């Protein structure tokens, strides 16, 4: 078998790993917006439990991928340098604080859980950044794109759920708009930073996913938010669509990032051997 210098797609992490980033990011983002949106009582409890369920689903998904699932506890052995260990610690804190918040209906505890959820989302971005073998992942800009899309997905999910019962508060919509803009800017920065390092097929996959992220995940939701602001009769359906679009496009981007754009470094020779006479 010949391995040429051309990079090929990594085969170590598949959709199960992608689901950890997909569900984990959205769950963390949901906890943040739920805790700071002024929700209380059963509504707060439901949102907190849903956010934790998403994070849990992501972790269970990746648990199915590891080779030795019965040793999963060993994931916590290297907090000094491994972002995967730090992610697991953050997840533990999210569950401890989040479950206490849901049990007691406590807003301060929910906010503490939300802060640890922010750490969790940040750790997920740094997990990818530390993967030096994958040029499309190892740039610092990806950590921020991953972080902003987590916030955006959580806000989108929150808005979509809120429209099922009522029109979301203006503060939530303003936060959602800012998150959408931040994610669009983070995508632009990220795309620029991988332009020279990532393999051509990786860039092609990223460009397709990025186009969807910008058109259907940024411009369309912002337009729908504006529509909702000025056309009260269609406001709820517009906001529902905006939330779903922000969530779905973030998920598709992360799926592509892990399973389609993760070409490895390949091999490169800065010099060819000089044989015989020169």
């Amino acid at each position, binding site marked *: 078998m*010949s*391995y*040429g*210098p051309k990079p090929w797609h*990594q085969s*170590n*992490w598949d959709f199960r790993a992608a689901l950890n980033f997909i569900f984990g990011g959205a769950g963390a983002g949901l906890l943040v917006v739920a805790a700071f949106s002024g929700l209380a009582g059963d509504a707060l409890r439901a949102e907190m439990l849903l956010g934790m369920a998403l994070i849990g689903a992501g972790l269970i998904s*990746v648990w199915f*991928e*590891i*080779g*030795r*699932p019965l*040793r*999963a506890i*060993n*994931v*916590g*052995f*290297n907090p000094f*340098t*491994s*972002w*995967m*260990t730090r992610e*697991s610690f953050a997840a533990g804190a999210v569950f401890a604080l989040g479950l206490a918040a849901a049990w007691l209906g406590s807003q301060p505890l929910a906010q503490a859980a939300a802060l640890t959820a922010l750490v969790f989302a940040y750790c997920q971005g740094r*997990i990818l950044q*530390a*993967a*030096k*073998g*994958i040029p499309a*992942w190892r740039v610092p800009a990806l950590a921020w794109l991953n972080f902003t899309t987590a916030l955006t997905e959580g806000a989108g999910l929150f808005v979509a759920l809120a429209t099922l019962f009522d029109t979301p508060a203006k503060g939530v919509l303003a936060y959602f708009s800012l998150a959408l803009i931040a994610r669009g800017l983070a995508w632009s920065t990220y795309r620029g930073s991988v332009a020279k390092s990532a393999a051509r097929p990786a860039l092609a996959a990223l460009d397709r996913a990025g186009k969807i992220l910008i058109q259907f995940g940024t411009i369309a939701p912002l337009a729908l938010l504006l529509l909702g602001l000025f056309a009260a009769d269609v406001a709820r359906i517009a906001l529902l669509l905006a939330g779903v679009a922000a969530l779905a496009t973030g998920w598709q981007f992360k799926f592509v990032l892990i399973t389609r754009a*993760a070409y*490895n*470094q390949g*091999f*490169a*020779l*800065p*010099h*060819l*051997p*000089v*044989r015989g006479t020169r």
Partner: protein
Amino acid sequence: MTRWAMVADLRRCVGCQTCTASCKHANATPPGVQWRRVLDLEVGEYPAVKRAFVPVGCMHCDDPPCMEVCPSTATRKRPDGIVTIDYDLCIGCSYCAVACPYQARYKTDRASFAYGEPTPAEEQRFDAKRLAVATKCTFCVDRIDAGTAKGLTPGIDPEATPACVNACITQTMSFGDIEDPHSNVSQLLAENQHFRMHEELGTGPRFYYIWDKKEEA
């Protein structure tokens, strides 16, 4: 302080894959797993095509990204520079595999054998500990340790030298202590122009490639 390093003289390699075969034999790796392999690279376009054979594997980096990301501390680095994996600690998350820029790590989820059913030799050497965990080149650390315990010199005495180096038919590969200025590898690097792969990533690989003799002053 001893720091083991590998040197491959690319001018000598003929791509015979004897090192690959000897590694498989010495380490009993399953089908599809090649801790030592030789790339067959064609560079350029007709008629200016050049061919190079490049032995690759774990580079035993100074600053190994695989060790930094490992959540279980299964991947460690010895004082002599050899990067090891503790199969009893590894959870098989493959994070090290995506962190390695040299595609040196493997994970085999199920037992597999060259002819389906295990041969008597495969049966005897099968190690269930290696299933579903990360594996990679160890620089034949067991041979090095056993050899040095007997007072032998790795890279000089075959009994203490990695199997791939012993098997190389063209003396492409050399192994030795890079901290010793009189060692075989230090001498080779002093006399020849060399590079390390993906050096720009800051991993500090301990695998050097010689590509030409040094320009005369």
